[in-house]
C-alpha cells in the first residue's frame, strides 16, 4: 500500500516537473548578454492574453516563399521577419534582422550587418548562412517564388555574398532606386530546417498547411501552435523573439493570436460586434458606419485612417490580340483606342457620386493612380476637373462623334457606341460603381451594360482570354514607392492590363511611360525620380489607359481593451505591430 502511494507521488512529481520544463520553454526567454535585441518605443503593456481576428479565407500554405494569397500572407507575416523593414507608421525603412546597412557610393553594393546572438523560434541561432540560403531559394527559378521578380534587376538577379558570420553583401547589376525597400517582406528562412527540402527540390511542398508546427520556425514574433482546418489557426509567442520593450522584457506581449475563418464581411462584422474578434480591418463604409454608431456601448474604437493606396479604375480592352469569338470587339476597340473617347468617358463620370454613394463620403475622387495618401509621390499639379456632360460632349464632337436624334452617341464610323462593363459579383462596391458609370454615360448617349461576374472568371477574361470590353478593378499599393507598380506601367508588365503581353509599346505615350518608369528605377536621387514619376502621372491623366475613379478610406477598428493599437494605411493595416499589441 505504502509503496503504491510512493510510486504515485513520484509519478505526479515527474509530471509536474515535465510540465514545468514545458512551461519554461514557452515563456519568454531572458535577454542574454551579447544579444543584439531591438527595443520597441511603443507604450509598455501587459504581458499575456490572446487576440482574435477574422480571416476571409483559409490559408493555402504556411510557406513564405511560394504563398500568393492574402490569408497566408496575413498569417506568415506574423511568423517571419525580414532584414530591413518598412515601418508601417512612418513609411520609412528601418533595420529589422539587420542591425545596420551601408550603401556603396555607386549604389551597387549594400553591406548589411546582422544582429548578433538572436535565435529562430525553435531556439537555433541565426546567422549569415540563413540569409544567403534564403535569397538562394527566392532567386531560384525552379522555386517559382513570386518575390523573385522584385529581386531581379535588369534581368540580372541580385548577388548575395557572406562576408563573415554576421555580415552579408548584396550586389546589384545596376543602380536601383530605393533598393532597401525590396527587403521588406522577404522572410528569412531557417537553413537548418529547409536546406534538405531545397536540395531535394521540394521546397515548394514543404511547410504546407498539413505540416506539423514542430517542422517550422521563423524569426517573427509568433510561431505556429495549431491549425484546425475549417476553424482557426492559433499562433503562440515566439519565446526567442528579437525585440524587447523599454523595460528590456522580451516581446510579444500576447501569449496567443487566433485567426478565425469567417468567410464574409457581414459575418465578420457580426463576430466583431458580438466580441468574438478583437480587431477588424478591410470593411466597407456602410459597415463602418454601423459599428461606429454603437462603438460607445460596445467598447469599440473605430478609426477612419483616411485615404489608402488602393485605386479603383475603369479600363477598356486595348489588347491587339483578341479572341475571334468576340466578333464585335475589334470594331468597338477602334472607339476605345481613341484618347478623346476615353477623355469624354472620364469627364462624364460623376466621381463625387461614387464617393457619396459607394463610400458614404469615406473616400477620395482620383485623377491619377497616386492617391492623396501618398504625399511623397503625388503630382499635385494635376487637378481633377468636375464632372461636365458639356465638356464630355464637346470632346466627342471634336473627335467627329455624332448623335442620333434620340440622343444615342454614334462613333465616327456611324455605329452606336455601347459596351459592357465587367465587375466582380462578390464586390458590391465595385458593381455599384459600374452602375453609377452606366447612368452617367447615358447622359452622353452611351449605352452601358453592367455584368457582375465571379471574380476569378473576371480575372480570367482580363488576363487570359482578353474576351471583355471594359472592366472595373482596383489595385492596392503595398508601398508608397512607385517601384512595386513597375509591372502595371512597363509595356511587358504582368499587370499592364489594358494591353497585355506586348513588348513594343502601341503608342508614343505608352513608350514614354515605359521609358520613364525604367529610368526612375535606376535613378538614385529622390527629387529626380519624383520628376520622372510626375510625368508618368501626367501621361496617365492625359491618355487614360486606366480611368482612375476613387480610393476608399482605410477603415479599421479594435476593442478598447487592445493596447498599442496603431493602424496604418499600409497592408497589413492592424497587425503590422502585432508584437506590440497587448490586452489591457
Amino acid at each position, binding site marked *: 500500500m505504502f509503496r503504491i502511494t510512493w510510486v504515485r507521488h513520484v509519478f505526479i512529481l515527474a509530471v509536474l516537473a515535465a510540465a514545468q520544463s514545458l512551461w519554461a520553454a514557452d515563456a519568454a526567454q531572458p535577454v542574454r548578454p551579447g544579444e543584439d535585441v531591438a527595443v520597441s518605443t511603443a507604450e509598455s503593456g501587459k504581458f499575456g492574453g490572446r487576440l482574435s481576428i477574422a480571416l476571409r479565407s483559409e490559408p493555402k500554405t504556411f510557406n513564405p516563399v511560394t504563398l500568393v494569397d492574402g490569408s497566408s500572407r496575413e498569417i506568415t507575416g506574423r511568423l517571419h521577419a525580414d532584414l530591413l523593414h518598412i515601418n508601417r507608421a512612418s513609411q520609412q525603412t528601418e533595420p529589422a534582422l539587420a542591425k545596420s546597412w551601408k550603401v556603396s557610393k555607386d549604389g551597387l553594393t549594400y553591406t548589411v550587418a546582422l544582429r548578433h546572438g538572436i535565435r529562430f523560434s525553435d531556439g537555433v541561432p541565426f546567422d549569415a548562412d540563413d540569409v544567403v540560403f534564403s535569397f538562394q531559394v527566392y532567386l531560384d527559378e525552379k522555386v517559382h517564388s513570386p518575390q523573385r521578380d522584385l529581386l531581379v534587376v535588369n534581368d540580372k538577379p541580385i548577388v548575395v555574398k557572406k562576408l563573415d558570420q554576421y555580415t552579408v553583401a548584396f550586389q546589384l547589376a545596376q543602380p536601383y532606386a530605393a533598393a532597401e525597400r525590396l527587403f521588406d517582406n522577404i522572410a528569412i528562412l531557417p537553413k537548418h530546417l529547409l536546406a534538405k527540402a531545397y536540395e531535394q527540390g521540394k521546397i515548394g511542398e514543404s511547410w504546407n498547411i498539413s505540416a506539423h508546427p514542430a517542422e517550422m520556425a521563423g524569426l517573427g514574433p509568433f510561431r505556429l501552435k495549431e491549425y484546425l482546418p475549417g476553424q482557426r489557426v492559433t499562433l503562440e509567442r515566439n519565446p526567442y523573439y528579437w525585440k524587447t520593450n523599454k523595460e528590456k522584457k522580451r516581446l510579444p506581449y500576447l501569449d496567443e493570436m487566433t485567426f478565425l475563418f469567417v468567410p464574409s*464581411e*457581414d*459575418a465578420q*462584422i*457580426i463576430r466583431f460586434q458580438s466580441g468574438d474578434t478583437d480587431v477588424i480591418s478591410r470593411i*466597407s463604409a*456602410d*459597415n463602418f*458606419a*454601423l459599428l461606429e*454608431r454603437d462603438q460607445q456601448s460596445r467598447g469599440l474604437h473605430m478609426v477612419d485612417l483616411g485615404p489608402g493606396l488602393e485605386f479603383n479604375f475603369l479600363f477598356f480592352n486595348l489588347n491587339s490580340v483578341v479572341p475571334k469569338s468576340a466578333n464585335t470587339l475589334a470594331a468597338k476597340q477602334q472607339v476605345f483606342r481613341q484618347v478623346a473617347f476615353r477623355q469624354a468617358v472620364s469627364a462624364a463620370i*460623376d466621381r463625387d*457620386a461614387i464617393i*457619396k*454613394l459607394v463610400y*458614404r*463620403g469615406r473616400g477620395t475622387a482620383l485623377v491619377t493612380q497616386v492617391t492623396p495618401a501618398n504625399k511623397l509621390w503625388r503630382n499635385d499639379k494635376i487637378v481633377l476637373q468636375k464632372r461636365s456632360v458639356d465638356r464630355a460632349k464637346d470632346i466627342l464632337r471634336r473627335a467627329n462623334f455624332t448623335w442620333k436624334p434620340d440622343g444615342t452617341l454614334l462613333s465616327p464610323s456611324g455605329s452606336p457606341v455601347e459596351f*459592357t462593363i*465587367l465587375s466582380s*459579383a462578390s464586390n*458590391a462596391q465595385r*458593381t*455599384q460603381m459600374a*452602375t*453609377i458609370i*452606366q*447612368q452617367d454615360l447615358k447622359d452622353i448617349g452611351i449605352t452601358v*451594360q*453592367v*455584368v*457582375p*461576374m465571379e471574380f476569378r472568371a473576371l480575372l480570367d477574361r482580363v488576363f487570359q482570354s482578353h474576351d*471583355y470590353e471594359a472592366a472595373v478593378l482596383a489595385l492596392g499599393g503595398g508601398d508608397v514607392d512607385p517601384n512595386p507598380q513597375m509591372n502595371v506601367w512597363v509595356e511587358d508588365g504582368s499587370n499592364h492590363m489594358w494591353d497585355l503581353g506586348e513588348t513594343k509599346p502601341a503608342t508614343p505615350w505608352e513608350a514614354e511611360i515605359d521609358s520613364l518608369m525604367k529610368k526612375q528605377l535606376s535613378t538614385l536621387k529622390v527629387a529626380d525620380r519624383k520628376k520622372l514619376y510626375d510625368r508618368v502621372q501626367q501621361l496617365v491623366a492625359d491618355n487614360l489607359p486606366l480611368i482612375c475613379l476613387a480610393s476608399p478610406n482605410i477603415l479599421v477598428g479594435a476593442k478598447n481593451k487592445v493596447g498599442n493599437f496603431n493602424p496604418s494605411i499600409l497592408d497589413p493595416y492592424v497587425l503590422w505591430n502585432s508584437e506590440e499589441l497587448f490586452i489591457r
Partner: protein
Amino acid sequence: MKLTLPLGLLTLIGIHLLFLFCGYIAPYDEAQQDRMAAFAPPTKVHLARSYPYIYVCAWNAHETDSGYDEDCSQKFAVHLFVNGGDSHLFGVASPGRISLFGTDGLGRDQFSRFLFGARLSLFAGILATFLALLLGTLIGMTAGFYGSFVDSTLMRFAELFLALPWIYLLLAVRAFLPLHLSPIQTFFLLVVIIGAIGWARPARLVRGIVLSGKERNFVLAAKNLGASNGYILRRHILPQVYGVVLAQAALLVPQYVLAEITLSFLGLGVGEPAASLGNLLGELQQYHVISSYWWMFLPGIALLLIFFSYFVMANALQRRLKFIAV
C-alpha cells in the same frame, strides 16, 4: 365562404392591373437615381386640410436616426394625375421627391422599383406557369389516354425532369449564353427554363385524372358511338382536367415567382439597373441593409400579401372542385 373565390379573384386581378400599369402608377422610372438621397426613409406625407404635401429631405450625416432631416421651409403638394413629359398617377414638383417605400443605396425610388420589379417577376411566374401547364396537360393527357408504351416513356421522362437539380441546370444554361442579355431576353429565358422544367408535376397529376376519367361511362359510350380520339380528348376528357389545372395554376404561380426571385437573388436573373423582386430582396443579403434600413423589407412584405392571395385562391378553387366532384 362562397365569397372567398370571387373576392380572391378580384384582389388578384386588382393587384395585377396595378403592376401592369406600373409605368403610370409609379412616380419615377425604375433606374432613375437621386444621388442626394441614398437610403432615404419613406417620405412622410403630411395632410393639410385640403391636400397632402411633403417636404424635401436633406442628408444630415446621421444626426437623426435615419440620417435625413425634413426641410420644412417649402411644402410640395402631392398632385394626382400629373402630366409632365410622362403622365403619372401622382407626383410632386421638383426638387421634391416622393418615395413611399424609401430609396435604395443609389437613391432609386423603392416604390417604383417594387412596381416594376413585381411586374417582371409576377408575369414571368404567370407565363412560366402557363407554359408548364400547357406542356404538362398535353403530355399528361397523351400519357394517360394512350397508356402502355407511350405512358411509360413519357412518365419516365417526367421523373427525369423531377429529379433534375434545376439551379445547376440554370447555372449551366447561363454559362453558355452571351455575357450580357437585355432584361427582355433574360425575362423570356427565365420563363422558358422555369416552364420547361416545371411541366413534369402537373403532367403526372393530369395523367392520373385522365386514367380514371377515360373509364367513365359517358367516355366509353362516346367511344362506342365511334367518336375519334381527338374528339373524346377535347370534348370529354379535357373538361375533367380543367379544375385541377386551375388549382395547380394558383399554386404554381407563387412557386415560380419564387424561382425567379431565387435566381435574381443569386445574380442569375435580370441585370442592373432593371428591377425584379429578386434584385430588390437581394439587397437584404447585406448586413448593414438589414440592420439599418427597415424599409428595404417592404417589397418582401408586399410580396407576402400577394402570395397569400394566391394561396387563398388555390384553396377556394380546390374546395369548389371537391364540391363539384361530390
